[in-house]
């Protein structure tokens, strides 16, 4: 790194420009990562927070994909699941989206219906026929606290507790009893309406899920795999991840282009160093070390700015999630891909002929 360090200091303008580009790309990737995670949390946190291992949907017909909005299960189905060997618990969960009102304020909410006392809901033991548990955002949106009242689908309910901050499909969650939920659920075509949307399962290693699905007329997937059944999540997350992927690729290409030009510019120096006895491996190490220093410095600066901006905006309504996974992981990927891009460009050091340092043949 003897020459590489001095090159960094000597050609400060060029390296500062490149570092600024890395800072900006990292900032963009960091903000996009935080936003992606924040939006994802607003879409699925109610599902990922469920104390279950699998979700059983009503088996869709005609080759359709699983969907939370299209599933409707009956009491018979979840009672059958509850009796399957190896299944520790099978609890019905109703999901619908509606509006709630309180004191002249209204808010779009996701209603999660559970059996009173169910462990699926936070403070589930407080849920009664006319008493609901509100997530913090739902309570804030309606301007109610524990002990207050609000209206849901024409029924007045009491706020039994404000607990957690679960979201589903970008709306805050209100946990109610299944009977209360049924008044908000769209008709399923049956006489009495749906009993629930899905069944939340807790299974052990001995459970034969496929056989149970066949017997109950359901289709079971893991809790995490069930996220794909939330239509908005799959498309939104896919689009944002695609943008993030493109940004990673663009950063690798920019780094590669910069070091390609840089290597070409200093090929005369490289030829001289080789003629003087520098090994190709040593010169490659130097060049990659130089790239790593530039990338690490630029990425750390960009990450720090992204974290600061993220912390500021997440205090407001922007769904930005600031965690090591959303900040440090993209930074590590940026450095890794950048070094890869640099490696692909500085490899031309190996092809520089030291003979050129001697000038043309006379």
């Amino acid at each position, binding site marked *: 790194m*003897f*020459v590489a360090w*001095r*090159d960094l*200091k*000597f*050609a400060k303008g060029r390296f500062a420009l490149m570092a600024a580009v890395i800072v900006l790309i990292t900032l963009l990737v960091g903000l996009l990562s935080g936003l992606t995670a924040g939006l994802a949390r607003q879409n699925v946190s109610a599902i990922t927070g469920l104390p279950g291992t699998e979700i059983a949907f009503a088996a869709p017909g005609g080759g359709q994909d699983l969907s939370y909005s299209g599933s409707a299960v009956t009491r018979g189905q979840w009672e059958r699941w509850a009796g399957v060997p190896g299944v520790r618990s099978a609890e019905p969960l109703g999901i619908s989206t509606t509006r709630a009102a309180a004191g002249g304020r209204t808010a779009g909410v996701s209603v999660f219906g559970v059996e009173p006392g169910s462990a699926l809901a936070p403070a589930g033991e407080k849920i009664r026929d006319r008493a609901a548990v509100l997530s913090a955002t739902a309570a804030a949106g309606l301007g109610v606290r524990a002990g207050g009242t609000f209206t849901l689908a024409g029924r007045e309910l009491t706020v039994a507790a404000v607990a957690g901050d679960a979201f589903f499909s970008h709306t805050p969650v209100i946990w109610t009893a299944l009977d209360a939920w049924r008044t908000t659920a769209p008709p399923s075509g049956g006489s009495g309406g749906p009993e629930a949307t899905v069944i939340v399962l807790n299974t052990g290693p001995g459970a034969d899920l496929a056989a149970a699905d066949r017997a109950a007329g359901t289709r079971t997937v893991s809790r995490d795999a069930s996220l794909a059944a939330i239509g908005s999540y799959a498309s939104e997350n896919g689009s944002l991840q695609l943008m993030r992927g493109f940004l990673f690729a663009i950063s690798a290409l920019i780094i590669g282009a910069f070091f390609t030009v840089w290597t070409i510019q200093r090929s*005369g*120096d490289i030829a*001289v*160093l*080789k*003629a*003087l*006895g*520098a*090994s190709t491996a*040593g010169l490659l190490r130097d060049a990659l070390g130089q790239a790593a220093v530039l990338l690490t410095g630029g990425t750390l600066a960009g990450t720090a700015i992204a974290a600061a901006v993220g912390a500021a905006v997440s205090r407001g309504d922007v769904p930005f999630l600031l965690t090591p996974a959303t900040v440090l992981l993209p930074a590590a990927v940026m450095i890794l891909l950048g070094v890869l891009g640099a490696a692909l460009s500085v490899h031309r050091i190996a092809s520089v002929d*030291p*003979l050129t*340092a*001697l*000038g*043309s*043949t*006379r």
Partner: protein
Amino acid sequence: MSLDLHDVTLTYPDGDGRLTALDRVTLNVPGGGLTAVVGPSGSGKSSLLAVAATLIAPDRGTVVIDGTETTGMTRGELTGLRRRKVGIVFQQANLIPSLTAAEQLQVMARLDGRSPAGARTRAMELLEAVGLAGQAARRPHGLSGGQRQRVNIARALMNDPAVLLVDEPTSALDHERGAAVIELITGLTRRRGTATVLVTHDRAHLAAADRIVQVHDGRLRHTAAP
């Protein structure tokens, strides 16, 4: 310390055939001796230097540097040999723009894995020997052409080479500065006992040589004392 080329032939691809750059060249340069190589453009002077510097392998013949036969050595072994045994003074100074005069020399020691403190001391000694002790912290753009060429010479001596290969060191200098550079190379050759090959087109410098070799069409036409 010596340089021996024996029956060296070097050819380059040239259309469908091959161009002979060196044709059965035999040359012995003893330690402490300065051999001047002269000849017209395209005669093979630089090819001779390139072969002696192990930068290119001859088609046939042998190159022996300070007793080490280079035939069959790997590229890595040749690089190591060049680092330890061969000093090259380039026609243009070829200094690294980002390094100061002292660092131009220190980088040689770094390549050889020597301690930074020792390298700094050695670099300052050599810069003093070429009359540049006061310019150690200057970068190439802050030095004159003659000063850059002296740094070039000092750099070639940094690893105490057995063989010093000097390629037209005065081509970019005026007569007075050119003469000073030749005097410097001659003095260093005598004092340090290096086997020095000086490629030059300037006959005014030949008086300093112990022997003059004329190259024509890749052949050594004759050798003579000045």
